[in-house]
């Protein structure tokens, strides 16, 4: 299905990542957003608030992130494509509702423009330190999807993908920007609506009475209805059966939690989105994501100029992690280098997947600015020895 032209600002723009992310959401069909202001993410909702009245939809600034992160879920059950936008402290407040979106299977996009933490940390400066928080932050077991754009253009393009994945899998999808990507201004090309593919919600064709909210086929993703259409659904954050009714026993828990996990794990291969540059035959592979991938790119170029066989693998989808691909590469490369704006988060995943077959050299950074390309270059050289 093509995008609704009402939300698509076709043309060539010179805008920052926050604005581009908003345009991506509008193009993807997002018609309800709720948020609470927080640097460096606020521009996303400011633009949404300005644009939405004439696109036809709704923005509401609520009293806090707890409210925003559940108001979008109410709106999703009324049939809208939805998003909330925040940064570290707000994300921390949203944790309980990530779990609700996971267990009730609410298609939703959660934008996190990462800044330095913990706590109030560095409000105006970048980090990539929420990567594990979105994976594990809400209690219990669940499998989210997360994407990491590295430019304003990608904030637009990948936002459409984020919405499409949210609808396809009915999970919370995290859009993991950072302060630099959010605030950097670059050329952004927005195509015609007819060139933008959007995924429609998985509506049921069943009639009220036949429909069970959590019955699934082999896809493990149940069909959806919306409130007001006569289905009289019951939706709960409690463990539930196929009817959506609370079922507080180990058998129902086993069935539900395994399905929630497997609907993503079984599709992990399909969900892999990595951009590879010269990894075949490389001695060293740099694994990076988001803004760090741009700095790493410069270091990789310099290393190649110095005669090192180095490849670059950029994670576009960070969750689920492309463990299979790292495992393959671990058999052929000497070492991975993992620079990231945190004290070592995705590096743990690389280590896990490499399973001792290749060395993993971490390059942590506490945030506040990006890495020096020279630091990454030095790590590549060390890894090549």
């Amino acid at each position, binding site marked *: 299905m093509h995008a609704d032209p009402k939300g698509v600002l076709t043309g060539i723009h010179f805008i920052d990542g926050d604005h581009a992310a908003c345009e991506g959401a509008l193009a993807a069909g997002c018609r*309800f957003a*709720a948020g609470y202001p927080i640097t460096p993410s606020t521009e996303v909702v400011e633009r949404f608030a300005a644009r939405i*009245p*004439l696109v*036809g*939809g*709704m923005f*509401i600034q*609520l*009293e*806090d992130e*707890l*409210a*925003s992160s*559940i*108001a*979008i*879920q*109410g*709106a*999703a*059950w*009324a*049939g*809208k494509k*939805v998003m909330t936008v925040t940064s570290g402290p707000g994300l921390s407040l949203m944790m*309980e*509702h990530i779990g*609700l979106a996971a267990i009730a299977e609410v298609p939703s996009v959660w934008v996190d423009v990462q800044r330095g933490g913990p706590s109030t940390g560095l409000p105006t400066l970048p980090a990539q330190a929420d990567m594990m928080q979105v994976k594990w932050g809400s209690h219990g077991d669940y499998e989210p999807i997360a994407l990491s754009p590295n430019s304003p253009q990608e904030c637009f393009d990948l936002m459409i993908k984020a919405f499409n994945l949210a609808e396809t899998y009915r999970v919370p999808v995290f859009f993991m920007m950072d302060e630099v990507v959010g605030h950097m201004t670059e050329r952004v090309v927005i195509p015609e609506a007819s060139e933008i593919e959007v995924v429609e919600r998985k509506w049921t064709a069943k009639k009220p009475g036949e429909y069970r909210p959590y019955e699934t086929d082999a896809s493990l993703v149940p069909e959806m209805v*919306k*409130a*007001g*259409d*006569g*289905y*009289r*659904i*019951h*939706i*709960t*954050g*409690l463990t539930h059966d196929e009817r959506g*009714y*609370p079922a507080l026993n180990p058998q129902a828990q086993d069935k539900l939690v395994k399905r929630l996990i497997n609907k993503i794990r079984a599709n992990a291969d399909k969900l892999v989105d990595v951009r590879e540059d010269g990894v075949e035959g490389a001695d060293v592979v740099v694994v990076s994501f988001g803004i760090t991938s741009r700095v790493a790119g410069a270091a990789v170029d310099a290393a190649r100029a110095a005669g090192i066989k180095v490849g670059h693998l950029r994670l576009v989808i960070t969750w689920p992690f492309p463990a299979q691909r790292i495992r393959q590469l671990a058999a052929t490369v000497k070492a991975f280098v993992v620079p990231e704006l945190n004290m070592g988060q995705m590096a743990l995943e690389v280590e896990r997947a490499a399973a001792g077959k290749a060395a993993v050299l971490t390059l942590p950074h506490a945030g506040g600015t990006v890495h020096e390309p020279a630091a990454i270059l030095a790590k590549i050289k060390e890894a090549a020895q």
Partner: protein
Amino acid sequence: MSATDVLSCEFENPVMPYLRQERLPHIWCPGCGIGTTVNCFTRALADSGMDLDKVAIVSGIGCTGRVAGYMNLDSFHTTHGRAIPFATGLKLANPELKVVVYSGDGDLSAIGGNHLIHAARRNMDLMVVCVNNFTYGMTGGQVAPTTPLGATQTTMPYGNFETPFNLPFLADACGAVYVARWTVYHVKQLAKAMLEGLKKKGFVFIEAMAPCPTLYSRRNRLGDGVDQLKYYKEKSKIVNGANTKDVGLSLFQGDIVVGKFVDRERPTWLDAMNEHFTQHFGEKFTPYGVSHAQD
């Protein structure tokens, strides 16, 4: 219900069609007042003549939070304290729905207190039913923001020394357009208030006092559910239009003022938005949604 309907279900409890019968029996204790409030709510739904496909119910977490799960409506059992913002999203995304929030005193006024005051301030078009049993029932009878002074609770083992909220005053001060309090002794009045609430446009707050015999009454040696009803009967005074400042319940087993305290008009958040954008954008703006009909 037409006369023939009544005949055909002669032996059926008239409440039944409004409940998810396959989910019964419910979890509430004998003598619990929550069920009585649900009974009143089903009467209000029946009398409203509303298309029940267009009525949704949202609960938080607690014994009262389980109400959504028993109603044969589109029903959402959300997280503790957040029923109001969930309902806000649901309502704004489909203004055709009548959205009812049904939850406990702890859920709505402690953890969810911030949402309560802001939804009232915005005049969000929601009907909120707050079942006030003076305690946290679900978790075993801890002190709530409604617990009267001196009442004993598991986390106030020597008696409560915190001043409780006067909920109608709070809702009134924040801008609710309809505020009432009844007890489960006043079933007719409570059902009528709920009916009026269903028909009212804007933020409606109905406090329904209900006994929790298992925890609140037992711990305070107040007898069973029936004894609490006697208390409601003996100590309640109906004062419609009472100044909400004067209706606080801070005294243990003290006097209770019940009645319809507030009934006024104010543009809802959505109406205000539509009007404002129409003024600002003129013809380019298409008013959002259709307002809930006040038939």
